């Protein structure tokens, strides 16, 4: 058991089963579909209220994603701790400003380039999740398990745009 916890990488089927159990427990106990992107919107709404309240005075923050320290925010905090413990147990933990090895090999070791792409990518990703009504976890998996049409439209759409984006970024580079 301990040696399993110390493994660097599990089969995606085993890790996926663990996450599936997390979904079952969350839905059974709290009646909530766990998600990752909602926390950023809840915190973003709080920041908007604190810095420039007019920004939070709209339909989205009033009705769709009310600002606050919500269930999703605590899940988000738990995710950081869980991933950290997992990485520490397997000796996989390390701080780095540019991911390796693939990014370094293809795009070089420039820190600002990577951080700019992550920053812009993060904004685009979260903006898209806001419009769609969730992300990979809350909508694609959380809706998909109920066979909700929204989940499958979302999964199809994220691959329709994700594939050419990745292909363009790697065009003749790798």
């Amino acid at each position: 058991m301990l040696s399993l916890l110390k493994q660097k990488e599990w089969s995606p089927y085993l890790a996926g089963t663990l996450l599936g159990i997390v979904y079952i427990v969350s839905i059974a106990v709290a009646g909530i579909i766990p998600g990752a992107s909602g926390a950023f919107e809840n915190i973003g709404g709080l920041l908007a209220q604190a810095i420039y309240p007019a920004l939070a005075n709209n339909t989205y923050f009033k009705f769709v994603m009310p600002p606050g320290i919500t269930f999703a925010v605590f899940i988000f905090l738990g995710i950081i701790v869980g991933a950290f413990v997992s990485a520490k147990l397997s000796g996989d933990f390390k701080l780095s400003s540019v991911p390796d090895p693939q990014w370094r090999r293809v795009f070089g070791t420039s820190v600002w380039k990577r951080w700019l792409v992550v920053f812009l990518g993060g904004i685009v990703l979260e903006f898209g999740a806001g419009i769609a009504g969730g992300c990979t976890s809350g909508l694609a998996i959380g809706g998909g398990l109920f066979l909700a049409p929204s989940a499958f439209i979302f999964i199809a759409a994220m691959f329709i745009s994700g594939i050419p984006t990745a292909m363009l970024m790697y065009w003749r580079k790798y």
Partner: protein
Amino acid sequence: MGDILFPLVLGFGFGFALQKAGLSKYNKIVNVFRFTDLAVLKFMMTTLAVAMVGVFALNTLGWIALPAIPSTYLVGNLVGGLIFGVGMAGAGF
């Protein structure tokens, strides 16, 4: 206290599973869009299938009620997903 501890424990399992699947790594995420590593899809679909069986088994036994299911609005899901995919493939998160 349970209101805080419970989602924290859920999140712990969430982060643990993702890290163990290697999905905290840039190349795992971007390579699913390049068809060179399908771990993201295998992981996602396993989670979906396991959760589906578990939730509907418990529901059929009458032990749990189903939560609010993400609503479908074609244009929103589609446009949001298209924008999301660009961000995900670019950032690799």
